[in-house]
């Protein structure tokens, strides 16, 4: 409802994208009114909203203003690419962030910790789209390389697909990894001072086993929570990063739709992103019970 209203309040006219500068300038008021009517934009807002709800219920999500393409087809075609980028970035963030956090926590205020903290601050500060552009330019100028220009699904050509998604996934993953590293460091620092960790060490358990078996599982819970929240950043960040890499995913489709003022596409994609965000957070909440038996009993 909010996005529906916001999109209708925002200034801007889809007819500029439709007719170009010259055509738009030559539109007579009567023609303009007729075209807006054809697009369904001159109906009262409640009617437009009800029509959108009907399209959602029917599963089609409506059609783009401009080329008449179904929004559901757009999502099915481009969604897998964005989903892969999201999942890969989470995996990368854990693969990078967790070891860095552990090393940092086990050697606090020593050289590895200082290096790890500096790098994590750096990656927290660097905007994803800027890093993305640097990677694209470096790949171009040093290796004369560019990823495929069109959508290639994993099941069509895994290698071409990987080339499309790996860049954005690495950029988003490194950004998230910085958060994960900082969170896992602070949680682990707290946990390794606990009595049961000291007891394990006193029993003569090896340091690696103490960390992996006793300390880490207890330190991970906040990290899992953080990952859920960061998924929201991935969704938002993917819009800019896909644009920087020129990856034809949903984020890029959203940018184009905003520029074109294709409100049907924008409102459906924002709705989709909102649903995904809610689902991820519910899944994270449910995972607590699995990760921490104490929660299950309460």
């Amino acid at each position, binding site marked *: 409802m909010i996005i529906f209203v916001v999109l209708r309040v925002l200034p801007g006219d889809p007819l500029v994208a*439709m007719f170009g*500068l010259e055509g*738009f300038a030559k539109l007579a008021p009567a*023609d303009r009114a007729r*075209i807006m009517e054809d697009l369904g934009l001159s109906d009262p807002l409640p009617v437009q909203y009800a029509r959108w709800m009907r399209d959602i219920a029917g599963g089609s999500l409506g059609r783009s203003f*401009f080329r008449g393409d179904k929004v559901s087809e757009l999502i099915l075609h481009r969604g897998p690419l964005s989903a892969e980028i999201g999942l890969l970035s989470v995996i990368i963030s854990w693969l990078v962030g967790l070891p860095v956090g552990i090393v940092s926590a086990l050697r606090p205020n020593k050289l590895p910790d200082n290096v790890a903290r500096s790098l994590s601050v750096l990656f927290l500060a660097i905007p994803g789209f800027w890093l993305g552009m640097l990677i*694209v330019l470096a790949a171009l100028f040093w290796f004369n390389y560019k990823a495929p220009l069109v959508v290639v699904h994993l099941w069509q050509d895994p290698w071409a697909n990987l080339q499309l998604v790996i860049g954005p996934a690495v950029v988003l993953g490194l950004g998230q990894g910085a958060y994960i590293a900082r969170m896992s460091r602070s949680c682990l620092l707290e946990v390794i001072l606990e009595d049961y960790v000291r007891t394990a060490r006193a029993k003569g358990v090896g340091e690696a086993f103490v960390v992996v078996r006793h300390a880490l599982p207890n330190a991970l819970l906040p990290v899992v929570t953080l990952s859920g929240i960061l998924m929201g950043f991935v969704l938002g960040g993917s819009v800019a990063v896909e644009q920087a890499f*020129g990856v034809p995913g949903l984020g890029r489709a959203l940018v184009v739709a905003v520029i074109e*003022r294709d409100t049907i596409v924008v409102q459906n994609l924002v709705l989709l992103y909102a649903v995904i965000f809610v689902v991820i957070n519910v899944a994270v909440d449910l995972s607590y019970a699995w990760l921490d038996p104490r929660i299950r009993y309460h």
Partner: protein
Amino acid sequence: MSDHASDRRTFLKRAGAASAAVVASRLPVPGSASAQDATVKPDPAAKRGGTLRFGVHTAPAHFDVHQSGTVANIGAQSPMYDYLLRRDPRDGQTIIPDLAQRWEIAPDGKKYTFHLRRGVKFHDGADFTAEDVKATYERIIAPPKGVVIPRTPLFSAVSDVVVLDPYRIEFRLKEARPRAFMLGAFASGWNIIVRKKTLEENAGNLRNVMAYPGTGPFRHVSRRDKEVWIMERNPDYWNKGLPYVDKLEVYHMPPFSPELGSALLTGKIDYGRLLDPVSWRRAKETPGMTAAEFNQSVIQAVFMNNKKPPLGDPRVRRAMHLALDRHALVEVVKDVAPMSVGGFVYPFHELSTPAAELISKRLGYQKDTKPAVQEARRLMAEAGHPNGIRNLTFLVRDAATFKLWAVAIQAMLKETLNIETNLRTVQISQWFEDAAAGNFDLGISAIVSALMDPSDYFTAWYGKDGPQNYSLWTNPAFHDLARQIEREVDDGRRKTMVRQAEAILEQDPPLLPVSYEKIYDAWHNRVRGQNPSTFFGIYDVVRWDNVWLAS
């Protein structure tokens, strides 16, 4: 027709492009008997086969080429269609036959008779006849309700379109128009010929009809929205032996973007159009690649709301016109978009003051800005603003070039005339809403025209109530002269009148010309048969029928 010959030669002299002159001098005069036999012929040396990958612009917002005003449509869809006449792809200027095999113009200039090719078929197998031409042009001349065609004014003098027989059609005019103007209108890349039946089945609106049949050298195969449009060779193309390539893939990529540049430089595409200057320069330096630049029918300009005092005063507007250092403005955006200095008339058109003369002699265009600034200050004092003007709202379109220019112009106006402006940057669609509503003092944007001929844009840009006259400018003497220019069929007299109009515009500026857009193309040398160096704009020659791949 001999007038056309002299005009073209004049142009070529002015352009000073020796290579272009060599090519063009072998081409026939537009409309002459030899031009009418100058259909593009297959080159025996050309290789056949292969896939040509062309990167151009973002995806079209709809599929109706007639209703469009952007290269998004032309770039992707043109290869599927033909026109009545076309610009020769070898020089981009000479008008040669297309679906009309030959044509006659009545001595009084009021009747254009076209003799159409026989045996031409649409992609759905239907025969092409004069009825299709009539339906196409009647739609362009008088669009049905809810359909807007920017080229409608080009044919405002046409009173009747009469089918004489299935392969002969006549356009009758209420009053004569310059032949170069009318032939240019018929050869415009926007005026593709579509089937009468297609128009009837879709109530004259093709915005949502993706692949309506044409007669062109390529047929639709598939399209992925905002990604690629794939076409295949039309085996039944009327021009036997053409096209050479089996498949054409048109990739939709934002103009002037690193994405387009990198796709070309890495060989993901064979030919890139609307390249950014950095990628273009790199392509030019890269062995095995060729780069070309050519003029485009777009002016970048600052509009001044004449309804807001003191901008209604011509002295103030001329002072602002003289205060701009146009060479610096071209330099400011040199890494973003290619531009050139020009005035109120396309600087590269045969009717305008030659660019070299403009830059060396005329105030406001010279590299040394001191004399112009001195005159500007005198005008401001004379207009009662010796201490400048405060608080002008400067409406800026949210695009890299306009944002860079706006800051530079703001500084130039402040430093030279003490005019203070407040920048308000808005998204493109909002810019046009605000401009149309008059919610600005100054506003910077780009405007385009269908033809380079002044009679097209004198009405649209500077005409009273012209659709792109955002300044709401009026000048009765200019409007009278523009009407005469529109009707004058003698090229010599017309040229004199255009120069007079230019003089009026200099003294009473309807806008501040910032620069004229140029187009950067580059391609891998395996692409043969295409050199756009002498093209005028990107709208008339996009068919790829004479292009072949060496490997």
